[in-house]
């Protein structure tokens, strides 16, 4: 081929380059202002949390009795004392820097959010895909189990678990993950039921692929859209459950902290030191908003038929 012909072929290829469904979805997602803002803000919060030890010169457990319950320097209202430079969010009741504690709280809350969601994702996807793929009696039995579990007052079992096993940090991941996988299983099952009628599954079966191979290689990749949406909406749920437990004093233990613990402390001292309530609450609310915006954006992007 002459160079000119090669160049022609290349331009042609570029002109007709197919856009995958994922590329379409990505374009739609990035056109959604709320979702993009959500991603940006969430990225900033995550980065701050990740580099918390380097962002502030104070240690998260550094007690300083000379600045007990002090407002930040810029605090416009009346306060007993000012915390001095560097304490951007003021200090708590034993003089620890609130800014760095909020960031450490973000670390715990986000970590619990992601890990517990991952746990629920793995259980839910495998369970749902299995039930949906086999169908018939297996499906009926497996979904009956989910129905029964659904009607249990789960938060009470989580509380019992946390109380009885002495507030074990790792148990919290498992306990929360075990609570939120149910909806995931239902969604995946529904998707699988419709996916398995498709020709490519029939082709795979005709080619002799094992059931496990069909589920993991062919069905799960094709039901990923709704699952991604649900995952982004599960993370804030999990963060809420964790803070709920921590607020009741059943989650993270001192000197480690999470947003729930900080909000609980802030609620106790809000009359004299409202900043201790306002900043953790603000960080948590903003983060939860971001996840909700991203989830809504993803739903619109991945499922254009909805509109």
């Amino acid at each position, binding site marked *: 081929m002459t160079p000119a012909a090669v160049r022609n072929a290349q331009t042609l290829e570029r002109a007709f380059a197919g856009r995958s469904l994922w590329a379409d979805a990505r374009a739609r997602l990035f056109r959604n202002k709320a979702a993009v803002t959500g991603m940006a803000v969430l990225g900033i919060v995550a980065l701050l949390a990740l580099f918390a030890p380097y962002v502030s010169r104070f240690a998260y457990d550094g007690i300083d009795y000379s600045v007990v319950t002090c407002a930040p320097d810029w605090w416009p209202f009346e306060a007993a004392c000012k915390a001095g430079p560097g304490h951007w969010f003021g200090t708590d009741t034993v003089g620890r820097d609130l800014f760095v504690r909020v960031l450490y709280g973000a670390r715990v809350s986000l970590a619990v959010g992601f890990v517990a969601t991952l746990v629920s994702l793995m259980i839910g996807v495998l369970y749902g895909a299995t039930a949906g793929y086999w169908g018939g009696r297996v499906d009926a039995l497996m979904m009956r189990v989910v129905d029964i579990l659904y009607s249990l007052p789960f938060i*009470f079992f989580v509380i019992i678990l946390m109380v009885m096993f002495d507030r074990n940090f790792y148990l919290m991941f498992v306990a929360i993950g075990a609570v939120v996988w149910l909806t995931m299983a239902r969604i995946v099952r529904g998707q699988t039921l419709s996916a398995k009628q498709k020709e490519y599954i029939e082709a795979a079966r005709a080619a002799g692929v094992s059931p496990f191979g069909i589920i993991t290689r062919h069905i799960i990749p094709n039901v990923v859209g709704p699952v991604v949406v649900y995952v982004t909406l599960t993370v804030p749920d999990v963060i809420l459950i964790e803070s709920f437990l921590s607020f009741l004093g059943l989650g993270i233990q001192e000197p480690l902290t999470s947003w729930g613990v900080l909000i609980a402390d802030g609620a106790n001292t809000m009359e004299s030191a409202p900043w201790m309530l306002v900043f953790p609450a603000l960080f948590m609310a903003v983060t939860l*908003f971001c996840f909700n915006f991203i989830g809504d954006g993803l739903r619109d992007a991945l499922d254009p038929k909805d509109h």
Partner: protein
Amino acid sequence: MIGYALKRFLGALPTLFIIVTVAFFMMRAAPGGPFDAARKLPPEIERNVKAAYNLDKPLIVQYGIYLERLAQGDLGPSFKNKDFTVAQLIGIGLPVSMRLGLLAMALAISLGVSLGVWAALRQNQWQDYSVMTVAMFGITVPTFVTAPLLTLLFGVYGVHIFGLEFNLPVGGWNGGAWRNMALPVVVLSLPQIAIIARLTRGSMIEVLRSNYIRTARAKGLSANAVVLRHALRAALLPLVSYLGPAVAGILTGSLIVEEIFGVPGIGRYFIQAALNRDYTLVMGVVICYAALIVLLNFIADMIYGLLDPRVRLS
């Protein structure tokens, strides 16, 4: 209909049985017991105490005894609150919690439905956007943030609105006085108002697009009649099936609200009892909650069947 109700009722029994079993063994699997006081009891006294509560028997026998008594409606004595049976404690706490929960539920449904309908009728106008923004706040900001914030505003600072000074008590029950109930009820209902408003808006928009609404309008019915008599009925159907989850949400919220506002309901018992390893009281409260949720789901299904002939008998 009655056959279906009976079937559903019998179907709920295994669920309750599983709840009782799981809760029982989960608590017993944990280290520690109700009589692990700071001051150690002499061994012979400890043995007597344990024998009195059957705690010296093998676990499976204890389970059998518990089930047998439960079947006769006996929830047993409380381990920590001496002189009280679990039934008595629940009898004291439940009316308080119920009153709070029912009021919150009534507020959530009336306000949520009105806001949802209003937003649907003004779809994509500023009214719609503002209602949905506020609803977004209600859903994402949790109870344990709104409770202290509202207390700060209306209790501590005493905000003035429309010339009225709000200076509500920050806690306590005071025999269920209105002033004491206002904040807990509002806090408890906020997330539910938001969810119900969203649900109602969504289904209302869908219903308003349907053919029979166009027919009703074409017949020349007034806008009010179309909305209230024709659209609203169909639009409220999804709300009925949300009734069960709503009650679960309010129960969960009541744990926080009762703790923050010092309301003497069963939510507070539950946390204290779990911390104290008061086995029977924890079981009693869990059974009570589970029964409530199962009952509400049952009622929701019944109402759904009555309202929508298509799901009847299926």
